[in-house]
């Protein structure tokens, strides 16, 4: 037991997350191993994004606890979170370079200067996502795929030990998806913990060793191929019910 405790990057202890008093994720128990590469899969409305918000701390659990294991305590929490892309003000006149540079916040904060070494890191990150030459372009002029590349460059700079991606490849073309998946693999090789919400089952099978299939409640969790069994997928689809305004208090609470 103690060995699994130290290996876990995140532990869920009977976690219920939701809005108002209505649960979107119901009674989740389990843990995500440090350095693992996990996909979260499930139908629309299954609570996948909600779960990420809970992990990142944007949403407080209605019940239960989410325990985070943090290494390198001196630097505090190193969690990088990429929400669904639409939540960023693309009309704000800021160049690509500056947006990527935001990834240095953990090291530079509100006042710290951007050193020559930092500039090198920023350029490297921009090159790693294939956006060299776009540094001075305003983010409003980028296509959806280019924007996603830029956001991945910022993730690279964040140098986080836990990386959360919410539908990172939705409406992104195949070439961009492949390039960005290479970065995900690289993070996995660097022993970072990566959790991604995804819809493309084939892609999950190809790249992600671990999967959590969720439909408000966890349906199956573990090694990808056994989790993504057709029977489980069918069960998940049936389990998402409509929001019931007259729901009773949960007996398991």
């Amino acid at each position: 037991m103690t060995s699994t405790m130290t290996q876990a990057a995140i532990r869920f202890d009977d976690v219920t997350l939701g809005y108002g008093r209505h649960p979107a994720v119901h009674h989740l128990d389990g843990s995500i191993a440090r350095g693992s590469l996990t996909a979260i899969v499930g139908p629309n409305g299954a609570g996948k994004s909600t779960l990420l918000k809970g992990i990142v701390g944007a949403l407080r659990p209605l019940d239960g606890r989410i325990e985070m294991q943090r290494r390198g305590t001196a630097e505090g929490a190193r969690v990088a979170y990429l929400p669904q892309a639409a939540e960023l003000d693309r009309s704000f006149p800021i160049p690509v370079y500056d947006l990527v540079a935001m990834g240095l916040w953990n090291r530079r904060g509100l006042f710290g200067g951007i050193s020559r070494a930092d500039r090198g890191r920023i350029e490297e990150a921009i090159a790693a996502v294939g956006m060299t030459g776009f540094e001075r372009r305003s983010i409003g002029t980028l296509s959806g795929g280019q924007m996603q590349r830029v956001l991945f460059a910022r993730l690279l700079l964040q140098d986080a030990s836990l990386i959360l991606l919410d539908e990172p490849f939705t409406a992104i073309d195949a070439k961009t998806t492949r390039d960005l998946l290479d970065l995900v693999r690289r993070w996995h090789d660097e022993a970072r913990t990566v959790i991604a919400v995804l819809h493309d089952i084939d892609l999950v099978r190809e790249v992600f060793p671990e999967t959590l299939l969720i439909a408000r409640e966890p349906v199956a969790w573990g090694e990808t191929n056994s989790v993504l069994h057709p029977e489980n997928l069918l069960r998940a689809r049936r389990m998402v019910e409509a929001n019931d305004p007259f729901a009773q208090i949960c007996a398991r609470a």
Partner: protein
Amino acid sequence: MFDALIGPFIQFDFMRRALFGALVLALGAGPIGVFLMLRRMSLTGDAMAHAILPGAAIGFLIAGLSLPAMTLGGLIAGIVVATLTGLVTRYTVLKEDASLAAFYLLSLALGVTIVSLRGSNVDLMHVLFGSVLALDDAALILIAGIASITLLVLAATYRGLVMECVDPIYLRSVARIGTPLHLVFLGLVVLNLVGGFQALGTLLAVGLMMLPAATARFWSADVTMMVVIAVTAGMLSGIGGLLLSYHHGLPAGPAIILVAGLFYLVSLFLGRESGLIWSLLPRRHLEA
């Protein structure tokens, strides 16, 4: 020519004071206006200006036409409304625009009630419409102090403010300073409005904030450049408005805002960034 442009300022002390007041106001209000505009809060300034009224009116009721009393009153009223708005937005379903509208209307009604208790009073007209030609030492020191605080605080929080504007969710994921930053920023808005109402009145103080900012958006796509242009436009409006008022006997406060409005209208048509003239003069597209 020289006499018309420089003469009034050399000749009259009150014109020099008005000029100093207008230039310094533009210095603080310009960058605040740019950030308000970029955060799509352009009307927030206007709402906050109304929210200040009851505080200033209470200050006037208690101490008469006293600068410290009215300034302090306005400041307190503005900060109370800004804080309540922020709290309601954060903890309830109401969005910022709706909760601000609710509180400023309450505040405005309260202000008008307090004002009418005293009946009509010429002095009170100064609160509503300002008296840029009657700025005393205390008022100038207040305006200069507010501009200094504004520039220092903006310089210190600039990075955070930009991040909070572009990607608040990202900022929240790396640091818990989004909400305090927002409140500090609203505090600066209130400070600048309070500084402005001595000169331009509660109703027009916001003009030197938003018109130069909107003007600047037509000339640059870079935040720093926009701030520089907004400050310049604000200062030129101050000079132009005072001269217009002097030579044609117009009220000075509205004249300053009218000139700022003129800059805006010209930029709307001729601005390099999406000015209307570019859609009237179609140019061939580029190769790449």
